[in-house]
């Protein structure tokens, strides 16, 4: 039960209180770039979630069974980014070959993900927080769901913004950032919810 409780805490914290986009600032580029339409936001969010979970599952054994025994933990950044790039490439090829329908809807997002800091960020966070294998994967899942949630919410906000009359100086990026600020503020409302549910 203890494990389940810990995992639920990681899940809720990752999605609501320490959201990847609004609180930790991972993946701002796709957040600003691909959130113009709900479809795009949904596709990007799903692809990022899948890659984050996959990358966490792949980098955990590499770190603990290769880098640690060889005493070269300091190479983790170099090693992880290569693994992520290779992983993304593999997923792309496999999807293209075996699930062409899924590839045509999500495939375009995949090359954008290699340089998304959310993916490298979550693998390094897993190491820093000394998570085990299951915890790492759940942490990545939580981060991914949080990313997806905020992307979809914010795409709605942006569709509204695009129909508004905005002061000239704020057009484009500034108004998007200010809207993001208000969205981020609304997520502050969730602070304490995890302690509230699981009794701290």
């Amino acid at each position, binding site marked *: 039960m203890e494990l389940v409780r810990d995992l639920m805490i990681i899940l809720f914290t990752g999605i609501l209180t320490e959201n990847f986009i609004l609180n930790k600032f991972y993946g701002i580029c796709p957040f600003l770039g691909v959130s113009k339409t709900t479809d795009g936001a949904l596709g990007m969010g799903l692809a990022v979630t899948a890659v984050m979970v996959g990358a966490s599952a792949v980098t955990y054994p590499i770190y603990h069974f290769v880098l640690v025994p060889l005493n070269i933990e300091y190479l983790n*950044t*170099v090693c992880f980014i290569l693994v992520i790039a290779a992983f993304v490439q593999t997923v792309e090829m496999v999807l293209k070959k075996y699930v062409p329908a899924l590839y045509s809807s999500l495939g375009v997002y995949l090359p954008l993900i*290699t340089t998304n800091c959310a993916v490298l960020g979550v693998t390094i966070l897993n190491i820093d927080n000394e998570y085990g294998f299951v915890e790492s994967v759940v942490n990545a899942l939580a981060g991914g769901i949080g990313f997806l949630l905020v992307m979809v919410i914010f795409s709605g906000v942006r569709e509204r913004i695009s129909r508004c009359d905005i002061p000239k*100086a704020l057009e*484009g*990026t500034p108004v998007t950032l200010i809207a993001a600020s208000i969205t981020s503020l609304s997520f502050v409302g969730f602070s304490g919810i995890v302690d509230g549910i699981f009794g701290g």
Partner: protein
Amino acid sequence: MSYMKEFTKGLLKENPNLVMLLGMCPTLAVTTMAQNGLGMGLATTFVLVCSNLVISLLKKVIPDTVRLPCFIVIIAGFVTFVSIMLDSFLPDLAEALGVFLSLITVNCIILGRAEMFACRNKVLPSVLDGLGMGLGFTMSLIVVGAIRELLGTGKIFGLQIMPDFVQPMTLFILPAGGFFTLGCVIAVLGVITKKKPRKVSCDNCPSREACTKLESKESA
């Protein structure tokens, strides 16, 4: 004189952060204090200059098809060097920057400059370009950091500036304040330079090709 131009264009006119809108994640994350902004900016500048130098030296050796992975490995190598150095000599700064120190690897400014400039130009212009872009990035981090620190805690670089009776607005050191301040700084810069701020564009982004594909798919 043209060398001078490679250096100065990154400072304001093509500021990677405020004009080209690259590298937003560290800009928002580390700018709760001007000092952290300075540290992050200089670390990024170092990596940018070194990676531009090495990539422009190796541009004939690296095969075109695998250039992105090659660039990333070169960049990641320098990032590892910087993070080991900061860990041993400036542990407080390394602590404050946290994961974002390692995430310099995926900062799109660095990969963007490698792709757009270093792999097409000679060594000296590439180094100057890296230096200018890096300092431009540092400047914008310091500006955003100073505004947030002043409004959020009443200090700049740890020195008390605001009189005691002004209540600091904690909002500004929260994530929400980061988005808000950056939005305002970009808007003000747009007004000063009388240029309409660009939309988030992938012009200088290594993933530009995929982005264009995506846009044409969305409009179809």
